[in-house]
């Protein structure tokens, strides 16, 4: 799946057109986007070794991942290892600010150095001009120094660059690469949620194809071969030559060997009977309903009459107390009372208790024990 993007990367630039720029935007789900990036990269590599691609070489600039991630053996198993010249790595991971190198000799910063494994270590990513030169140098090397051939440039994350440079500087840097005659495609990854929406739209504006990764927190499937490690969808928007935009949504999941595309039905299952909530022996949190239920529990000492507020007779506000009783209850209560008399002449069985009035304080302010000297 996502074949159209693969095709676009493979075909590169057409006559009289701008170099296609593919922007891969993720938010939060780093694992998925990294694997999708790798998926496109492997696809391109296969096409290059098969001779089907316009580009004859690849330059991968690693900002966020160690180069081991890209150069593991699985990628090169088809090709013989001696002819890896077409695959060039630029390492902006190990020493992006030159702390390692300058501390060693204390002298002026060395701009770059060759890694023992053959990749280039950039010592100062704050210098974009130099970085451009390195990329072009490596590109030339990757095409076997043939001036007529083109190469592809891949960035594992542009977000690191955006930490050091302003947005115009980064766009300008990308644009320089894009307008270079030797470049066939540019693919970069950015973490959308790390940046302002303005920055993200600028990146979208700049690129020809925008792929947004939307990950699913829960992936379920019935098939047994499906070892779900996460998944989600790719929203691919391609700006076409005629001015239309084609949108396509692909679904994927992460397998042990990388990204696997699958139809949506295989990835998103309608919620079956079993829930995904982990089974617990006990639960210290309360659900909303439990909370409600608990709030509704009438505690033994609470007044249990139909949710009425409890009124304790304290010698005052008698009228209020009796009026608050429902009419029927009131009448029956009156019947059971010892010779109730509305006029109040017969006060047999009543206890007279007059509480101190409210405005008088129970005691004076003074501490009664204050004068004691024990």
């Amino acid at each position: 799946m996502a074949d159209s993007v693969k095709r676009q990367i493979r075909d590169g630039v057409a006559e009289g057109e701008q170099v296609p720029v593919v922007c891969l935007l993720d938010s939060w789900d780093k694992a998925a986007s990294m694997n999708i990036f790798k998926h496109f990269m492997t696809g391109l590599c296969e096409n290059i070794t098969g001779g089907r691609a316009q580009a004859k070489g690849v330059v991968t600039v690693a900002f966020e991942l160690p180069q081991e991630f890209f150069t593991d053996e699985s990628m090169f198993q088809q090709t013989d290892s001696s002819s890896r010249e077409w695959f060039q790595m630029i390492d902006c991971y190990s020493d992006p600010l030159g702390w390692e190198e300058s501390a060693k000799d204390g002298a002026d910063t060395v701009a770059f150095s060759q890694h023992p494994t053959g990749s280039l270590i950039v010592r100062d990513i704050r210098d974009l001009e130099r970085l451009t030169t390195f990329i072009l140098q490596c590109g030339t090397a990757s095409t076997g120094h043939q001036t007529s051939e083109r190469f592809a440039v891949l960035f594992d994350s542009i977000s690191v660059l955006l930490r050091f440079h302003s947005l115009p500087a980064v766009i300008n840097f990308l644009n320089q690469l894009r307008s270079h005659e030797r470049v066939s495609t540019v693919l970069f990854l950015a973490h959308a949620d790390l940046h302002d929406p303005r920055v993200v739209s600028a990146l979208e504006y700049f690129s020809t194809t925008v792929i947004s990764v939307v990950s699913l927190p829960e992936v379920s499937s019935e098939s047994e071969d499906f070892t779900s490690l996460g998944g989600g969808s790719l929203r691919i928007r391609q700006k076409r030559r005629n001015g239309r935009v084609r949108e396509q949504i692909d679904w994927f999941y992460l397998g042990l060997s990388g990204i696997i595309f699958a139809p949506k039905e295989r990835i998103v299952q309608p919620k079956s009977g079993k829930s995904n909530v982990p089974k617990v022996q006990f639960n210290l949190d309360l659900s909303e309903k439990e909370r409600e239920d608990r709030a509704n529990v009438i505690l033994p000492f609470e007044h249990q009459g139909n949710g009425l507020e409890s009124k304790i007779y304290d010698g005052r506000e008698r009228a209020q107390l009796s009026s608050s009783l429902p009419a029927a209850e009131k009448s029956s209560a009156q019947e059971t009372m010892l010779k109730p008399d509305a006029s109040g002449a017969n006060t047999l069985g009543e206890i007279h208790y007059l509480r101190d009035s409210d405005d008088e304080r129970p005691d004076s302010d003074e501490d009664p024990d204050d004068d004691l000297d024990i």
Partner: protein
Amino acid sequence: MVEELVDRVCCRGGSVLVIRDCVACKGCFLLQYLLIKLLMETNIRVVMLGLVEPFSHYARIARKQGCSLQSMRDNGRFVFLEQSQLLTLQGNGTDDEANVTSFSDNPLAAVYLKVREAARGNVVVDPAVDGGQKTCIMIDDASVLDIIAGGDHNFVLDFLQYCRALTVKKQRCSVVLLTHQDVYEESPVSSMNLALEYAADTVLTVEPLSTGLAVDVHGQVTILHRTVQMEIQPSQLKAVDEQELYFDPVK
């Protein structure tokens, strides 16, 4: 599960494990737990940046758990860097100091050089283990790095990048760091929380129970694996005993 973390994260070079806690529930016990596990059950060297507590604090807890940090320190398995050690460069215009300031305005660059020196110094290459000995850098806690860097979060991110890229005998170091969730909950630095998450391979979040602090259950730990595979392992309850940690998975 927490028990797997040692193999899964700490032993993998270049990986970063972030522990985030809050005022109500301290997360340092996880750091201590991983430290003891690493020292007792693997042959990984640990370089620890003790920015909060002195060595005696860690050593005393470790002793209760049957591990002598002092002897580990003596034989080079455990390197402890105190804050005062890390910051001595600043202010006393030595040659090193001059170099440091000349190549970076980041005060953490000097700290990094110290860490590298400690990590690379007296590495014992064990012939029995292929590929030499791995190193794990522990930071307690990373929010102090912000203070050293004068509040510039980019400086801290650079420092962490260098720590994870640090190679000792061709083996990349792994990084375990403790930080606080609530110190970044404010714009415009709110991106720091996210940036840390992007840098991390695994994030452990330590929270108190919503029902409050209790004597036998102190809180809950959520494990989130971010790279290789996305996986959230929710709500593990933990109870801390004087000698041991109990993790009760909510499963």
